[in-house]
């Protein structure tokens, strides 16, 4: 099966600023992919490139094996919900469904109808008078009723209250379980995605910092605490993402494929949120620089020294 999303050297430039730079990705099908990064990192740019709303300045991108285009066959395979889940405020819920049926060749009217009933939405109500949660659910209904193979959602839960957020993700996961659709959704909060994603892409400062299956990421990242260590002396397979030292103690966040053998370290697993924050900080995404901001130069030295 072709990957849902693959990018090679992908970039988008506005004037002199790269909104997305040297992006390499290979996301296999059958995942719920979380795209996380701070605001302004380039998440929306990447999603717009994926659905063909933008064209790349550099490199290439393929979605479901084809370059994004306005070809109807390709459009029918990808569902897209833009940021703030836009709907036509003067049109009713029923009008939206009629529009969906008119514009999509594989429209599943029965499914759309059932979802609207389950959500207790009045078909005669204008979309402009719906709550944020209801509007998001209507947008999701339109996107899934076209029965896409790949569903792309830009910050779908950012503007929702916690309850609406939970309900939206419950519904989204139900759709995934029922129809086996692959999903890519973005958020600036990893906590929103932690339970639903099994693949993560961390995008900071226009670049992909790390990407991979969540379980693999959690399995290969560790927090090491112990007496003060010189990180230049670490084994070759331990890549330092974050370090802090006191005069006696060192705390490191490392990526390592094998076990940590040095018995002077206390080795702890790492939560997804800490992992993402460490990459954000390393990439300079944090607003506050830490004392140990020379981490990267040390890492570079580590590579050369060994």
């Amino acid at each position, binding site marked *: 099966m072709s990957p849902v999303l693959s990018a090679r050297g992908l970039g988008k430039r506005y004037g002199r600023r790269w909104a997305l730079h040297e992006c390499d990705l290979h996301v296999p099908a*059958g*995942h*719920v992919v979380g795209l996380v990064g701070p605001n302004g990192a380039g998440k929306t740019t990447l999603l717009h490139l994926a659905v063909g709303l933008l064209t790349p300045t550099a490199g290439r991108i393929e979605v479901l094996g084809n370059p994004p285009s306005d070809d109807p066959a390709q459009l029918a395979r990808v569902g897209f919900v833009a940021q703030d889940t836009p709907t036509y405020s003067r049109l009713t819920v029923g009008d939206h469904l009629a529009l969906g049926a008119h514009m999509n060749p594989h429209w599943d009217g029965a499914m759309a109808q059932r979802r609207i009933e389950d959500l207790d939405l009045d078909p005669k109500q204008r979309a402009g008078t719906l709550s944020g949660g209801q509007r998001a659910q209507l947008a999701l209904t339109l996107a899934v009723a076209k029965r896409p193979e790949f569903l792309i959602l830009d910050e779908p839960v950012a503007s929702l209250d916690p309850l609406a957020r*939970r309900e939206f*993700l*419950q*519904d*989204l*996961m*139900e759709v*995934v*379980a*029922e129809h086996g659709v692959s999903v890519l959704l973005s958020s600036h909060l990893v906590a929103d995605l*932690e*339970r*639903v*994603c*099994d693949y993560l892409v961390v995008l900071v400062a226009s670049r992909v910092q790390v990407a991979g299956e969540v*379980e693999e990421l*959690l399995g290969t990242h560790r927090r090491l605490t112990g007496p003060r260590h010189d990180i230049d002396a670490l084994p070759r397979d331990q890549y330092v993402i974050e370090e802090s030292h006191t005069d006696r103690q060192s705390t490191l966040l490392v990526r390592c494929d094998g076990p940590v053998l040095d018995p002077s370290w206390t080795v702890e*697993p790492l*939560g997804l949120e800490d992992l993402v924050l460490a990459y954000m900080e390393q990439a300079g995404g944090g607003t506050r620089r830490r004392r140990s901001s020379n981490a990267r130069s040390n890492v570079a030295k580590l590579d050369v020294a060994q």
Partner: protein
Amino acid sequence: MIEFHLDSRSGVSPYLQIVQQVRQAMRLGLLHQGDQLPTVKEVVAQLAINPNTVLKAYRELEHEGLASARPGVGTFVTGSLGAESLAAHGPLRQALQRWITKARRAGLDDESIEALFRDSFRSAGEEDIA
């Protein structure tokens, strides 16, 4: 039928939490041989988690011989848990209580006792692997 819940702060991965909750329900007699586990769709609609997480948990239970999937129907409990080892619980508990009393007499506080137990437990686990 049982319902799952997730503790996002426990540090235990969601799939393992589901496995543990099924095992626990079996030990407590809430689940018996032949009982159906919630369908993947039911679990994700309730917990808002990735369907693969549930599938992985159910596969793990199958691997342990505790459950089996009937395609198109669902996953059912096929094994039983705890009945064989239950008899050993009493003596083990007594031995542990004696050990705790000894540790207290030696002047260890609760936190030191827990730390010592965890540390010994971990090194015993490492010896098993090695």
